[in-house]
């Protein structure tokens, strides 16, 4: 079977990609997708650990996380739409009224 470390490595890479996405993409939708990516990387390592430890909790947690992710997307998109209404753009760095 595949050793745990591979899976963790993979999830870590996914997580990092997510992070980089969040930090360097301008489009809020994409940023949001990157966050989803991070969450999924977490799911992956959950599954991996539960497989490795041989208890099912991990897999159950994944469902929780998925639900949360879905809910987050729902809210998130709503807010992004609202942003588009107000700023006529969804580029993250346009939202720059509040500072200092």
């Amino acid at each position, binding site marked *: 079977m595949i050793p745990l470390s591979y899976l963790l490595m993979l999830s870590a890479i996914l997580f990092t990609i997510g*992070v980089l996405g*969040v*930090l*360097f993409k*301008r489009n809020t939708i994409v*940023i949001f997708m990157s966050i989803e990516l991070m969450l999924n990387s977490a799911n992956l390592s959950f599954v991996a650990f539960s497989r490795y430890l041989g208890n099912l909790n991990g897999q159950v947690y994944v469902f929780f996380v998925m639900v949360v992710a879905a809910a987050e997307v729902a809210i998130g998109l709503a807010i992004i739409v609202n942003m588009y209404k107000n700023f006529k753009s969804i580029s*993250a*760095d346009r*939202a*720059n*009224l*509040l*500072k*200092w």
Partner: protein
Amino acid sequence: MKYVWLIVFFPFLGFLINGFFGRHFKREVVATIAACAIGLAFVCGIYTLFDLLKLPPHSRVVEVVYFDWIKAGKLSIPAGFLIDPLTMVMVLVVSGVSFLIHIYAGEYMEEDPGYVRFFVYLNLFVSMMLTLVMANNFLLMFVGWEGVGLCSYLLIGFWFEKDSASNAGKKAFIVNRVGDFGFLVGMFIIFSAFHTLNFREVFEKAPEMFTVGSTTITLATLCLFLGATGKSAQIPLYVWLPDAMEGPTPVSALIHAATMVTAGVYMMARCSVLYALAPFSLGVAGTIGALTAVFAASMALVQVDMKRVLAYSTISQIGYMVLGCGVGAFAAGIFHLMTHAFFKALLFLGAGSVSHALAGELDIRKMGGLYKKLPITHITFLSATLAISGIIPFAGFFSKDEILFETFIGHHYILYLLGIVGALMTAFYMFRLYFIAFHGESRVDPEVEKHIHEPSWRMALPLCVLGILSLIGGWIQLPFFHNLKILGGFLEPVFHHAHEIGGMEHGTEVGMWLEGALMALSLVVALMGICIAYNFYIKNPELPKRLAEKFVGLYTLLFNKYYIDELYQKIVVRPLYNLSLGLSYVVDQHIIDAAVNGTGKGMVYGSSLLRRVNTGYVQFYGLIMFIGAVVVLLVNIF
């Protein structure tokens, strides 16, 4: 003798009554109250004297303690009075002379708007002066000491609208404070040495605890002497007295001639035991005294303001007293103090009545030939002048001569010489004054000349009384006949400790002829002075001018009083003031306060930088968070 507090109380009562209700009284009433207050004090003084005389000579020391004034740990100061011959002499002189002067002032101040205020201050002064001389411990003495200083401040600045007056007052107080600083330190030393400030205890313990010439006592006495120089206008602190003439003339007569300025001498006499234990201090005192005597006299030579001349002569006369104490002849010092009180007061009052007649004129160049118009003033003034010049049989002669005599037989020949020179000058400038003012042709401007008039009895009476006193005042202490030295004998018990310690038994081992010779000498000197004066100002009046032109440098130097005031301004007052200006600007504003405000400013500046980090770009925030997270991870894992 519980009642002695009355001596101090009566003047104080007068002070209170006039102080609170004086405004509502008529002037006569005010004057009467004031004079009576002093009179009563005088009467009490006499009564006390007789009580004292009832006692055998060597137990004539009565201490009356009234209440515990200050008490803190070891320091316990009961307030009370010490009655002994010395005190009595002072009490009588002070109350007596001031009584006369009160009468005099009653008329002299007639026109003054501040009439009430004047008598209020005057009464306060007397009560303070009496406290000073009757105190039973250093601290209470100091109360009087500063009290009289205050009154002199108030009275010098009596005409406070004149800047010169208020300046003079301030100067007097502050210079005196410098002296008081010495007095204070002296007290500290004495307290930490004896754990008491009570005169009797200190003087009893001193000989047992300390040997002659011990450092502690020397220091203490020197500090006290600094106080004396302040109060008694000796070098280096005499500068305030000439300016003090800004005050009304009776004040000058009472405070700055007869009583207050002699407080220093009294104090030295009071501490005779301590001084006897510190020969060095005595030496210093003697030297200072002699120097002052000459120095001040020299300045008096060329002054043209009547009162200023008298002021300098006062300084120089007190110089003699200090000299007397300095050579251990405390009795002589006190003797001269007494006689001086009479004739100097008289001189001032005379000057007063002259200026009274001449509508406040005091410049002797604007006088002359007054003797016809002001006979009484003239006669009395003359007697005083003779007295101060030391012409037998006037009071001044005996006292001054005794001092010089003691100086001589104490082997202080240089001091003696100075004394003689001083005597010469004294005779000269006094007669210069006398001749210019009362003889020669009148230089009074006719406007004033019309209504020159002798003062009424109220001013004349004191003049006459003092005139007589300055004639006979000296006879209570005659040379040669030791059993006739009444004053000396009376004061003996006070000073015999000092004498024992000093090992000086005066007037016995020297022969009559020496005494006689010295007397003759000083008499001759005095006469010489008079002759010179006569020669200068009556026979050929141009001489002085020519001399002045000849020695112009010396003349200006003397005329400007050696520029001492300017010197003090330059080296003491200005620098200190500038220093404080500098301190306040540099240290206070630009170091301390700047540091305080700087901290605040720094914070605000930091804030203005730090808040810039919040750029408003969400992803930048994310980045910061991420970095934070990474750091946390790294820190924790490794």
